[in-house]
């Protein structure tokens, strides 16, 4: 890894952390509804600088974010880590297998879907253990994730275009 890449990852992680912190301050109508704004940065990193950089940014964001909010190694940290890594992996795999099929919006939707599925799975295995409660809430969460995911995808798309223009 070159020095320039390290600078880039540090800067992008800082952006992701700022968005992560900002969204935890936003009031939402439903307590567990999160916008997933940090995924804008992950997705942009993935498309512009590749999978390794994106995974790095995600890991740094999750670990530092949990340290700042005081949830390090707690239940929220496990959910956050699981969701972040799974969504980054899913985007990376889809992008490497079918590079031209999905644009940023599609990748963001895939990330949101896998993020939610992995969090629901972890919540079931670790905390709730009532399958009917999880099944009842799954479509609602996936629907909300689709809405926020498409929004994030549109923002990433604009960001990527602007960054490419300035480069």
């Amino acid at each position, binding site marked *: 890894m070159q020095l320039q890449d390290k600078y880039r990852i540090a800067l992008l992680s800082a952006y992701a952390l700022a968005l992560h912190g900002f969204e935890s301050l936003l009031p939402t109508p439903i307590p567990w509804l999160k916008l997933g704004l940090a995924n804008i940065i992950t997705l942009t990193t993935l498309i512009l600088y590749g999978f390794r950089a994106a995974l790095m940014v995600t890991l740094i964001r999750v670990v530092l974010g949990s340290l700042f909010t005081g949830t390090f190694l707690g239940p929220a940290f496990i959910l956050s880590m699981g969701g972040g890594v799974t969504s980054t992996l899913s985007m990376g795999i889809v992008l490497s297998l079918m590079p*031209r099929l*999905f644009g940023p919006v*599609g990748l963001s939707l895939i990330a949101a*879907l896998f993020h939610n599925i992995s969090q629901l799975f972890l919540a079931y295995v670790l905390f709730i253990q009532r399958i009917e409660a999880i099944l009842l809430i799954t479509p609602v969460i996936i629907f909300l994730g689709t809405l926020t995911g498409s929004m994030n995808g549109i923002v990433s798309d604009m960001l990527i275009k602007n960054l490419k223009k300035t480069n």
Partner: protein
Amino acid sequence: MNLKGLLNSTTIADRILLFVLILLSLSGIIFIKEVLPKGHTVRIEVNGHLVYLLPIEKDRIVSVKGSVGNTIIEIKDHKVRITESPCDNKLCILQGWIEKGSIVCLPNRVIVIISSQEDELNKRVDAITG
């Protein structure tokens, strides 16, 4: 950025994925309640006191002692019935299998209720009338 630019920047696969996800999740929201079993627990009360609280998923036959004699209750395939009762009119047995609601045997003071988890929680909240 206008709407046209947005449409140009999404691929066909993007749009199909969005459409499929919205369709699946919305139909999931509507239909998941129908798929799930409605009642969760079977409450058996004698003289107003809770004797058994059983999951409806597990097949079981239990016998409870009422005011007159023993009532035998069978749980099978998410359904409940009373198979034997010492009462005269045997209305509780005639009622047959139930999936929701309740069976009441007044002579023997036995009540079988299928209640959902939410009902249980609501009952717990109301301490005054409960």
